């Protein structure tokens, strides 16, 4: 190997491959799509190999990179998601109006995330952060909605400009852009720390989709091209976790706000962030329950999960931060897999509306299993990775005695059973509609990434310590206590968890059940329509499929709940109205009115000047 691979090389390589993807797609669509498959895989391998050189700084022209423990971790997640999802691009080329642009922007988004995670200074972070924003902003309108992209940009801009304010505030105060250095300095100055915490925190909250900035998720995820929703939900959103991690743990907030009022074991500022997380969990859960669109449902579930992540990070103890990291990882895998399952379904049936689907398990069994594993993880049920993270987060919440936050978290956790089960029931189980009789299995190339993601979800549910040891190193690298292990056990503060044992025991239980099942007479296979119908004769499968407004009795209870989007709409309406008024009053086509205003203004100025 002549060239030593560094972060700079990877970034440049990705940029080149983005251009290459554009050019090749112009020549041949499929070839271009394959570039988007290969590039993330190569980058994944390269970043993986960089494991040993953590702590090294790299420079690329004027940009400085530093490979930190957490940067590496986030990058790996991101690359994994991108690499897996990219297989789907191959199938979507024909459906796009701008395939070349899509492929290029896809890789640029990846470059943006890697650059942001590895940037040494804030300017680099910001440049790449915005690169994520605009590259995805152009991809989203390739899907079903243009408005979604505008909403996405509006929230993202709010976040990134808040961050920009913080960056310059800190630069003005400390004269440096170096992330580590500035944050450490900020921790000694409560005001600066507060500004950094709020501004960069808002950027993180917006990206994560934490209440009240969650509205872009259902719109963007729900309407983006089916191949890009998994990237958004599994990948890009997690960059928000990175930003929150910077201010909560790297800074660290527990030192910066040590003099503040402490409440439930954390400073009041952190507690407010945690409360936003708690509200997100509740709002995300309730909204997810009532969605009919498969993608919007998962998008809202991402809102709920963002709540867990921000709670974990803001609590800043070893278990909670470890839990948050595990949750970021587990949710990235699970939501990417779930969205890929949706994409596969959408590819074969052309719809993502749950009420139009049903019984697909009989046509797409593997996709069903992928979705099943994904939702088990999302709902935090063992033996999947999502269980480990939730368990760790619950431990911290209980230790701090956060009753209300825990109430929200428990509600979200149980509520997730509801919303993850709905697609399972409405899309995959139940009656198969005759119009889907001829639906085929998902293509092999689509199965590969889905199986990889599901496999990893299960693997890290059984052996989470593989990930948690890395997390523990991240924690010690930023100067906090690391997670404790004992063999396959994770040592918690009020109890331990042995995921491997759980799986063994579950395996035994399953084997016993299987033996019981096999020992008894074989069942007779009957048709799906051959069911108990109270002696009525029904021949239409759709009529025997329970999928419309699935949780109607529950939804009824909160149908009058305030709608956050109305608040924003009201604000924008006011802005628009003021604009209309300005246009009408000051830009009149009657000169006398303008002269009137000029006189008024000059009198006011003369008066103001003489004061």
């Amino acid at each position, binding site marked *: 190997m002549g060239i030593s691979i560094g972060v700079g090389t990877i970034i440049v390589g990705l940029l080149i491959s983005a251009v290459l993807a554009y050019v090749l797609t112009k020549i041949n669509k499929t070839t271009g799509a394959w570039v988007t498959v290969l590039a993330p895989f190569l980058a994944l391998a390269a970043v993986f190999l960089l494991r040993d050189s953590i702590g090294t700084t790299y420079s690329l*022209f*004027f940009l400085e990179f530093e490979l930190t423990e957490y940067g590496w971790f986030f990058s790996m997640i991101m690359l994994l998601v991108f690499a897996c999802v990219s297989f789907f691009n191959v199938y979507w080329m024909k459906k796009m*109006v*701008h395939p070349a642009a899509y492929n290029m922007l896809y890789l640029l988004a990846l470059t943006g995330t890697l650059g942001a995670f590895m940037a040494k200074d804030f*300017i680099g972070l*910001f*440049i790449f952060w*915005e*690169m994520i*924003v*605009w590259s995805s*902003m152009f991809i989203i*309108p390739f*899907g*079903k*909605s*243009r*408005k979604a992209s*505008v909403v996405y*940009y*509006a929230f993202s*801009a*709010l976040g990134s*400009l*808040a961050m*920009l*304010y913080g960056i*310059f*505030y800190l*630069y*003005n105060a400390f004269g440096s*852009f170096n992330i580590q250095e500035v944050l450490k300095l900020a921790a000694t100055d409560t005001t600066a720390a507060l500004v950094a915490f709020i501004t960069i925190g808002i950027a993180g909250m917006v990206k994560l989709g934490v209440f009240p900035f969650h509205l872009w998720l259902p719109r963007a995820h729900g309407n983006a091209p089916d191949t890009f929703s998994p990237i958004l939900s599994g990948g890009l959103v997690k960059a928000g976790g990175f930003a929150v991690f910077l201010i909560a743990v790297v800074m660290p907030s527990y030192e910066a706000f040590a003099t503040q009022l402490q409440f439930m074991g954390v400073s009041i500022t952190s507690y407010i962030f945690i409360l936003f997380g708690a509200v997100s969990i509740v709002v995300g859960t309730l909204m997810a329950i009532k969605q009919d669109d498969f993608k919007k449902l998962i998008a809202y579930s991402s809102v709920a999960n963002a709540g867990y992540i921000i709670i974990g990070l803001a609590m800043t103890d070893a278990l909670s931060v470890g839990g948050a990291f595990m949750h970021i990882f587990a949710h990235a895998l699970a939501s990417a897999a779930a969205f890929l399952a949706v994409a596969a379904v959408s590819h074969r049936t052309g719809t993502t509306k749950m009420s139009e689907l049903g019984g697909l398990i009989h046509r797409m069994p593997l996709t069903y299993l992928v979705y099943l594993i994904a939702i088990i993880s999302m709902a935090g049920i063992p033996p999947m990775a999502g269980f480990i993270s939730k368990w760790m987060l619950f431990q911290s919440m209980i230790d701090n005695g956060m009753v209300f936050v825990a109430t929200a978290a428990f509600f979200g956790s149980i509520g997730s059973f509801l919303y993850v089960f709905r697609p399972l029931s409405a899309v995959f189980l139940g009656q198969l509609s005759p119009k889907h009789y001829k639906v085929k299995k998902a293509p092999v190339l689509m199965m590969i990434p889905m199986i990889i993601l599901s496999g990893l979800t299960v693997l890290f549910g059984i052996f989470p310590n593989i990930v948690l040891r890395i997390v523990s190193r991240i924690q010690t690298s930023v100067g906090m206590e690391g997670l404790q292990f004992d063999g396959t056990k994770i040592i918690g503060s009020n109890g331990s968890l042995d995921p491997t044992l759980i799986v063994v025991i579950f395996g035994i239980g399953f084997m016993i059940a299987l033996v019981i099942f096999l020992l008894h007479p074989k069942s007779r296979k009957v048709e799906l329509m051959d069911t108990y119908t109270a002696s009525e004769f029904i021949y239409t499968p759709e009529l025997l499929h329970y999928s419309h407004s699935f949780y109607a009795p529950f939804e009824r209870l909160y149908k009058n709940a305030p709608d956050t989007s109305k608040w924003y709409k009201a604000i*924008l309406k006011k*802005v*628009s*109205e*003021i*604009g*209309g008024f*300005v*246009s009408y*009053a*000051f*830009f*009149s*086509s*009657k*000169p006398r*009115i*303008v*002269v009137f*205003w*000029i006189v008024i*203004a*000059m009198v006011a*100025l*003369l008066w*103001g*000047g*003489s004061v």
Partner: protein
Amino acid sequence: MNPALLIAAPLLAAFIAVIFKKIDKVVLGVVAVGNIAYSIVMAVLFTGATQIAIGGFAPPFGISLVLDSYSLIGILLVNVAFGLILLMGTKLVGRYGIVLAVSLAALNGIVLTGDLFNLFVFIEVAAISAYIMTTMNKQLKHTFNYLILGTLASGLLLFGIAVLYNMFGSLNIIDIASKLAISGVSAGAMVLPIVFIFAGLSVEAKLIPFGGWVRGVLKKSNSLVGPLLVTGYAAAILLVFGRLTSTIFIMSDGLKIALTVVAVATLVLAEFTAFSKKNLREVLLFSSIAQSGLVVALFLNGLTVAAILVLVNNVVSKLVLFALSAKIADDTGTDKISELKGVFTKYRVLGVGFTIAAMSLIGLPMFFGFVAKAQAVMSLFESGNLWLPAVILLVSVIEGIYIIRILTTLWNSGKEGQVPSKDAQKEYKLNGFVKVSIVALVIGVLIVAAGILPITNIKEFLSSDFLSFITRSMGGV
């Protein structure tokens, strides 16, 4: 090198064109190119700030032109913008060659002059040529409206200048500035002239509530007049603001706050208005007004470098955006955003140029706009102002929303709620878009280059030393 040539040459061209009507376009073109070349040469050979006397009288008695790096930036900006606009809208010149030449002379004069009365004259000339040019839009009522307000503005300006002359017995800006320093005139006494000059200039600079004429004139303007008024004229007038605020505007705190309020209110309200608009040109014109407000606010706070950067960004990106919008409007018959779905799908190069300019306007990093915004925010922080950066950043969210709304709509055909498809594509036909596209693309490349270069050494860029040659050269000769 005598900068007077920049004013004289176009005037001469105008005369030639009067005599030889048939070659007016050629003459205009030659002069435009010549002016660009000459200003570039001057920039290259620039050694230090000088005051050039005109007509043999030494300043402060005679009329003088000031050539410093500040006016150098001004003439570069004005001439290059003028040249590019002319290049993109050659076909529209028609009978207006003479007027355009005169306006070029006047704009150069505004930027260069060091004499207040001379400034007034150039502004008058520029305004009159603008009135004539706006008749191209065939919206005579609005032109008339512009004429009335422009005349009022001239009156206000003249009154302010007269008061100053009465106070100091001089019209030379530098002379007045030095006398101000010596005599120690109280800030209170300066309120009257400052407010009148400010008001007079604000009409041309389109600040709210002074620039009431602008909507009627610009919302239907073609790809020649519109960009010219939005870029060249705006740049020249705003640069005058900058020169006056840094020299003779000795403001009491109350006045400074009052003027800043007008500027910031313009920024906020105009962005709100742009947000509420549905037509391309209307959105862009209100966006320009907002940027003018920002530039004036920065000048008032003494942040010349930041103000110039914001101004340059606005001029460059608006040049592209407005010219392309007007071009699209001219050829398709509408500039309603919702009726132009997917227009860039066919005209991709055009779209790329438009997109880069738009992204620079909203200040995304790697585009020039980010550099300008960073400088503005940072220098405000340095001057201890914490609220104005917040306002600037908040309104740029609003700005971003309407710009992105335009971009996503213009790039993607298809109904809301449906995946864009080639079948749903409306057919658009633009005439002679190649030249426009190339210009837009070249400017786009420059925007990106100018956006990346300063980031390579962002710290030095942000520290005032790096660009202090502009600030230093502002104060005196």
